[in-house]
């Protein structure tokens, strides 16, 4: 059998996956990008929480700072969206590797989870910013 011509294109590996290769790479990239955003959000959040729980925590204390505050609204809005992107992609890997759930059904379930997190999170942000 003669070796293939050096200039002929190599056959590409088949990808038996519910997502295109490009989508798989973009999911990974989205998870890392959201991780970078979350790194900042979580650091701020940890500092905020540790500061806030001094002398106990009351609703009045929280709401007096957050109600009507555009800054907190934007911060928590970005936080919620980042979590909604980051968590389902991570969970998708965990489920595929531990209980061997793969394919279109898992992708859809994770998408639903992401949307649910975004909606519940938006509601929570609304609750403390608008009241």
């Amino acid at each position, binding site marked *: 059998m003669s070796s293939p011509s050096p200039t002929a294109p190599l056959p590409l590996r088949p990808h038996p996956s519910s997502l295109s290769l490009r989508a798989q790479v973009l999911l990974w990239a989205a998870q890392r990008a959201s991780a970078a955003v979350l790194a900042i959000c979580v650091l701020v959040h*940890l500092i905020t929480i540790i500061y806030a729980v001094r002398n106990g925590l009351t609703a009045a204390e929280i709401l007096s700072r957050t109600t009507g505050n555009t800054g907190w609204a934007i911060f928590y809005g970005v936080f919620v969206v980042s979590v909604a992107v980051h968590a389902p992609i991570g969970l998708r890997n965990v489920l595929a590797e531990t209980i061997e759930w793969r394919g279109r059904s898992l992708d859809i379930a994770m998408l639903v989870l992401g949307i649910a997190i975004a909606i*519940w999170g938006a509601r929570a942000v609304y609750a403390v910013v608008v009241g």
Partner: protein
Amino acid sequence: MKNDFRARNHPGYWAFVVHRVSGVALTLFIPLHFWALAQALQGEARLDSFLRWTEQPLVKAGELALVFLLAAHFAGGVRLLMLEFLPWREWQKTLLAAATAFSIVASLAFLLNLI
């Protein structure tokens, strides 16, 4: 045949386990967290009564655990981002030590502010 703990007993693997367990735990917690905050939709008093429920020692212990898990997942994640995006250096174990230290410090800060 698969690997057991004998092959897995090294720092890189422990870092993975902490990261995965904390990630799953936080994902399960988030909906609860959003629900709790959304209590404010029914008025400040409603949120306040929920916060008073969280004053119980067992719940505070749970909060401490969550702070630790969040700090651990954050620090472990920063470590991974550095390993994946910065030019490779032999600092995986140093980064892990730093991540562990950060998680403990954050948890202690939270605990000391509770007492």
